[in-house]
């Protein structure tokens, strides 16, 4: 860069200098020569005219002196061109001089001149001739010749001075070019380095220049641009990191397709949901990645219109995941049409919705069943079935039983809704599990005795106290024990044991009853969920017992665990937090 500028400046100076010398030479050299030659010529003419005043004989006699004084060669020629006398050569040996240009010119005009290269001496010679007149007749010619050696040497001297001046000017130009190019290139070089660093992405400050010319303005502009650029980059980065944080931390799955409809970006949530099932899906098409007909259909719909499309898809067979999907165009890419797909997992919502729908249906059903029975019997009584007292009594008994069941159901529902609303007040205190059990067992013993079921209470007295509400614990135990007795066939056993696990007291109630299949264990605790609907209702359950237990246990900070094997019995473990002293 610096080199280039230097050479450019230096050579342009050099060209100007050379050109000026060339022109000088062109115009001045001939001028000097002419001036000097004409001076010599005038001088020679003067001598010749002086000589003309004398007679030819005298001239011939004094030829040598004349030549010496005039510093020239003097030749006396007669009218026919014959050399009469010459100051340097023997006249008789010389040829006829009439055809010499200067002589011819003199013959015609009275005086003549000529410059010729003399082969005898090897330099330019100036010849001057005048005609000697006698009256009107030319009697001869006087010719004077002088070498132009002096003229030549004067010119050479002048030129030597010229060349010296040229060299001095050249050196000066070189120096100026150096300084000038350096002063011009330095700021440019500084800016070049600065922008190069910027281009490579190194942090740069501002560029400072000591100049005050246009480069300074340029530098100022660069500084301004860099500032602007950096603040824009910073803003873009900030926006990007905000977006990325949002993308990675949000629970919705996000997927971006590039213009070729291949997956370009998948956020954390989505890859978490699908990594096991689908592996790495980057670079695949939607169809390859998800293999879902509904999704593909929705996507094709979207591609036709590029208007947002919403759909709901179900992925997976064994554990289906229901996703609500929204497909929309990514704006800001006019050239390539990118697509963003947002997946929202609604499996839980759908499940809850299903449970709610089921609940309402169940409640109506559960309430209507006893009511139908009551209304039916009451109508029978009203229409006169009371003829037989026994029948009437039986009908009333049944109606009462059903009304009581209805009452129980409503109570249970009330308890559950209170727990769920958080309105149930708990009085936590230290409760002995053994005491609680002893208060509860008599309540179920009667029923157990009818079915010849033995209840084995193996709870030791040294069990730690639990932190619980005494009445609620009783309610929990009644529900669980009641279930155990209810679902155990005749002559079975119910075992009650207690132990300790971590910070919990564990009460396990094991029966030898009908058991529950694995799939159904998961659903226990759902309201109105019954493993065997008809049978359970026969046994007088409301379908809310375990649901209440589950909620109460959670309210106590404990939990209920159920293990069961179909046909072999069920084991219910109740984990209560131990009361800390």
């Amino acid at each position, binding site marked *: 860069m610096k080199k280039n500028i230097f050479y450019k400046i230096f050579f342009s100076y050099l060209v100007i200098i050379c050109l000026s010398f060339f022109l000088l030479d062109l115009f001045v050299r001939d001028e000097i020569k002419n001036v000097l030659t004409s001076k010599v010529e005038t001088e020679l003419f003067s001598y010749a005219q002086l000589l003309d005043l004398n007679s030819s004989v005298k001239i011939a006699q004094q030829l040598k002196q004349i030549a010496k004084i005039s510093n020239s060669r003097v030749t006396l020629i007669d009218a026919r061109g014959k050399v009469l006398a010459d100051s340097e050569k023997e006249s008789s040996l010389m040829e006829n001089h009439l055809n010499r240009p200067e002589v011819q010119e003199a013959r015609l005009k009275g005086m003549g001149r000529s410059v010729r290269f003399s082969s005898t001496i090897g330099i330019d010679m100036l010849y001057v001739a005048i005609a000697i007149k006698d009256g009107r007749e030319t009697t001869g010619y006087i010719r004077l010749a002088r070498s132009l050696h002096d003229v030549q040497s004067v010119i050479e001297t002048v030129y030597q001075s010229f060349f010296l001046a040229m060299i001095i000017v050249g050196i000066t130009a070189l120096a100026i070019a150096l300084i000038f190019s350096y002063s011009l290139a330095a700021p440019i070089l500084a800016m070049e380095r600065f922008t190069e660093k910027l281009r490579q992405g190194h942090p740069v400050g501002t560029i400072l220049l000591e100049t005050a010319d246009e480069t300074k303005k340029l530098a100022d502009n660069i500084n301004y641009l860099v500032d602007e650029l950096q603040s824009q980059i910073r803003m873009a980065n900030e926006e990007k990191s905000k977006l990325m944080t949002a993308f990675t931390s949000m629970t919705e799955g996000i997927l971006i397709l590039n213009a070729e409809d291949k997956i370009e970006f998948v956020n954390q949530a989505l890859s978490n949901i699908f990594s096991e099932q689908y592996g790495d899906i980057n670079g695949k098409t939607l*169809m*390859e990645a998800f*293999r*879902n*007909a509904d999704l593909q259909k929705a996507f094709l719909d979207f591609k036709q219109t590029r208007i947002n499309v919403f759909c709901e898809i179900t992925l997976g*067979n064994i554990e289906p995941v229901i996703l609500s999907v929204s497909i929309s165009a990514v704006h800001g890419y006019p050239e390539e049409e990118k697509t963003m797909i947002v997946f929202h997992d609604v499996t839980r919502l759908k499940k809850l919705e299903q449970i709610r729908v089921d609940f309402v249906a169940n409640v109506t059903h559960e309430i209507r069943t006893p009511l139908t029975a009551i209304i039916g019997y009451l109508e029978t009584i009203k229409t006169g079935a009371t003829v037989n007292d026994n029948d009437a009594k039986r009908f009333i008994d049944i109606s009462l039983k059903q009304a009581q069941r209805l009452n129980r159901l409503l109570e249970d529902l009330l308890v559950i809704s209170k727990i769920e609303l958080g309105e149930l007040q708990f009085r936590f205190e230290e409760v002995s599990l053994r005491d609680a059990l002893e208060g509860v067992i008599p309540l179920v013993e009667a029923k157990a005795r009818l079915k010849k079921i033995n209840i084995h209470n193996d709870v030791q007295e040294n069990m730690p106290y639990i932190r619980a509400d005494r009445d609620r614990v009783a309610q929990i135990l009644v529900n669980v024990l009641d279930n155990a007795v209810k679902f155990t066939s005749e002559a079975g056993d119910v075992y009650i044991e207690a132990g300790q696990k971590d910070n919990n007291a564990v009460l396990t109630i094991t029966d030898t009853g009908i058991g529950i299949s694995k799939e159904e264990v998961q659903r226990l605790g759902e309201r109105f969920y019954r493993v065997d609907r008809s049978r359970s209702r026969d046994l007088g359950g409301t379908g809310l017992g375990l649901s209440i237990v589950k909620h109460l246990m959670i309210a106590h900070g404990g939990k209920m665990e159920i293990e069961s094997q179909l046909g072999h019995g069920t084991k219910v473990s109740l984990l209560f937090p131990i009361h800390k002293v």
Partner: protein
Amino acid sequence: MEEKRHTSLHYEVELQEIKNGLIYIGVLTENAIQNAMKSLSERDSEMAHKVIKDDDEIDKLDAEMEERCIRILALRQPTAIDLRFITTAIKVTGHLERIGDMAVNIAEKAIQLNDEPKLKPYIDLPRMTDLVVEMVNNSLDSFIRYDLNIAEKVRQTEQITDDLNEQIFRELLTFMMEDSKCIHRALLIMHVSKNLERIADHAKGIADMVTYMVTGENVRHQTRDISAKEPA
């Protein structure tokens, strides 16, 4: 296998469209099998009717796919693996269409079975269904990814479905021997099982085509020789 990009971007897009289209048909047939079997196990004849109706879509897509492949053959004149890809695609779509028809067969049998009381709880049939669906899925996977390992896995699974079919056949035979009233139902179930087994055969057919596509070597008849030696 790493795919090289073609110089013509549009050609690339066309090949990708064929892949996507095949997966789409594949997904539809997989759903058809599953739904047909679900209509049987959950005694849902409505779903069975839907499977029969939806098969029209598969048939239509199959015809479209074939036409698209032929157009590429005519316009692009593919060579080497691309040529084998297109010819294989034509065959694969044919296999898939046949699988769809089998699903329809199963659905038809399901409708008949649902009109009668359940013969027995289905244990082996759901297992077989899962295997068969996985085979169809894997065979398509191997086709899309040029993956010989998956193709090999499909070939191995085919043997298991054969055995399961055999087992179901024997079990149903005992039912029929015990009670002649259940012969009709048993035969229908046997049909279902046989159809599942044939779907597995088609999946294996796809896997064989994939091996041919990737290596250029024909393996179709080698494996058939081995299975032919075993008792039917």
